């Protein structure tokens, strides 16, 4: 098996075999995280542009760390300092960055499809680090890696995703990754954030506005971040959200005893999640962060080394 994509734009386009291959590759890089010396020379001389047109701390640092551990240089562009504020178009901005001859561009953008738009027009690989309401494919992959590590498999699991489904790119990427392994995904949240059409974006997806029913029998529970700015759009009182959807120890007991509790971060304790849940043994929030670096190392490596099919031979550590 090899990874034949030039870009990583969305999880929807990945096959089950490609996901497995990516996760296996990530596994090799996980080992490095445990070494005292974490830096490889694999991508020495290569450079990655991290073009973040939307504020991000975690994902940007995760990609930056991944690039650094592979020995690649990074060039950073952040929205607040970028020329887009001066009226330059996205295409002109990325063409300027491309002219500095990087080997890959990682892009985070508030507009869905912006990485696809860029990928069609540039000659270098593009990695989607989150586009609008659409996808966040490396998040989907790092979540899958975390589940596979903890439970020993990805196949045929009951997964509940709770929160603002409508506006969540994390939910979309997870749905596309997990359903390819036969997982049954239940989406739960306040009705206005739970479009019925979401049940149609992949097989075995269902909508369940009642949290207790959504958690029933779940083996994986993903709690999404509640963006407080969303609460203001059609005003949903915060207390209402907490009353119906906050993940508490009592509610989590509806799920299987061994169920994993995941959160893409940043987490707001006391809003979408009770601190006791966030810190419980079921929680894998910090493993997700660690695995994020490994997955992003694998993605950057596979897209820039030009050796997709030989990647499996690379020794980690």
């Amino acid at each position, binding site marked *: 098996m090899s990874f034949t994509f030039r870009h990583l734009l969305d999880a929807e386009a990945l096959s089950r075999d490609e996901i497995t291959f990516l996760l296996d590759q990530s596994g090799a890089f996980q080992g490095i995280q445990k070494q005292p010396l974490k830096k490889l020379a694999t991508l020495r001389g290569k450079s990655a542009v991290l073009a973040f047109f939307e504020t991000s701390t975690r994902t940007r640092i995760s990609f930056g760390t991944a690039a650094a551990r592979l020995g690649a240089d990074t060039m950073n562009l952040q929205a607040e300092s970028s020329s887009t504020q001066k009226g330059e178009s996205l295409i002109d901005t990325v063409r300027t960055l491309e002219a500095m001859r990087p080997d890959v561009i990682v892009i985070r953008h508030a507009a869905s499809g912006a990485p696809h738009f860029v990928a069609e027009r540039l000659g270098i690989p593009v990695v989607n680090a989150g586009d*609008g309401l659409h996808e966040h494919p490396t998040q989907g992959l790092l979540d899958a890696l975390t589940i596979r590590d903890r439970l020993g498999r990805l196949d045929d699991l009951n997964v509940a995703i709770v929160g603002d489904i409508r506006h969540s790119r994390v939910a979309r990427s997870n749905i596309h990754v997990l359903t390819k392994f036969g997982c049954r995904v239940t989406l739960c949240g306040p009705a206005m954030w739970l479009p019925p059409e979401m049940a149609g974006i992949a097989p075995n997806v269902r909508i369940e506005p009642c949290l207790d029913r959504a958690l029933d029998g779940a083996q994986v529970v993903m709690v999404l971040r509640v963006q407080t700015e969303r609460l203001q759009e059609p005003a949903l009182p915060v207390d209402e959200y907490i009353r119906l959807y906050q993940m508490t120890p009592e509610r989590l007991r509806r799920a299987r005893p061994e169920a994993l509790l995941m959160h893409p971060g940043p987490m707001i304790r006391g809003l979408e999640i009770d601190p006791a849940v966030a810190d419980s043994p079921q929680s894998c929030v910090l493993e997700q962060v660690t695995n994020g670096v490994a997955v992003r190392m694998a993605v950057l490596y596979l897209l820039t080394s030009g050796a997709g099919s030989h990647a499996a031979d690379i020794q980690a550590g």
Partner: protein
Amino acid sequence: MESQVLLIHGGRVVDPSRGFDGPADVLIEGGRIVRVGPHLTASMAERFDATGLIVAPGFIDLHCHLREPGNEPAETIESGAQAAARGGFTAVCCMPNTQPVNDNASVTRFILDRAAAGAIVRVWPIGAASKGSKGEGLSEIAAMKDAGIVAVTDDGKPIASAKLLRNVMEYARSLDLPVIEHSEDASLFAGGVMREGPTSVRLGLRGIPAAAESICVARDVQIAAMTGARLHVAHMSARESLEQVRWAKQRGLPVTCEVTPHHFTLIDEDVTYDSRFKMNPPLASRQDREALLEGLVDGSVDVIATDHAPHTQASKEVEFDRAPFGITGFETAIGLTLEALLHSGRAKLSRIVELFTSAPARVLGTQRALAEGETADVTIFSTDHPWTFHAAESASKSRNTPFDGRKFRGGPMATIVAGKIVWRRKS
């Protein structure tokens, strides 16, 4: 002046205004049709061999944006008219959302002066219903009518409030002008970029529900009923909107509507992150497309209009969210219509011609016929000539079309305005 006399011979004349469909020659002299009949002869005449072609009254486009004044890099009255002629249109109605807005007689006169100086087809301006199309006070509608407008609208957005719409309709009725409505509820529209549905949810693009259009059409027909004004619903996309129009028609109200070729050709499932698929109203559902096609055949849809909306490459080649709404439409309209209505077997040729000629004329309170004494505006088209549309070769200054590279069976062959052949197909 070139040849004063033009004989179009060998063609099949289709004139729905008088129910005529059959072989006939057309003799034009001094810009007027002097005879329509079999085997006409004329010495010293320029001859147009229309063998195998359809000869129809001049096509009218009720809805286009020519961008002048204000956005000449996207289109000018001259370039837009060139594109219209290539599309088989002999007259086009241009929307008032220019810069400045066509909300007073001096802008109307400017448009008509520019058209007289450089447009090869007729340009009929539509005036803004409210000052600056801002939805506050009425514009100078009577003065614009004297200057030459044929309708009023705040196109690009709906007439802002029910109260204002009532005033516009009452006033327009007294002036015998139709009110054209871009029906859209702003609060439901709410920053959407494509039709809400399975595809918008999958792509993560903000959705515009069908009801954003249909509840406004419901408002509009109610106020039309209240005022007795002529209401024409622009670029209708949703089947629920069509139900509202049918309701009005059943009550005998003077309510008409139009659909665009892209709305009866493409659907939301065709949308990608390519902004050439971004227009307003957005591409609708498969069921909507079917309903619009049925409406075109059964008469509940009155008119096909292009909503030709040119945009520069720089403005359109951006993130989908940021791109302006709209696509060009003149040159592909007939080809798309023949494909969807004629070759599919849904409609007869006379109905198709009606949708582009006598029907839009009726909306404007006039007539369109290919008969003795009429102005010699004639559209000649083929129902089977194979050709390919290349956006790069378009006469429009803009290239924003999802139909680049599309192969057609049949399309415009020649456009005649006031007896003069202003365009004819070369290959």
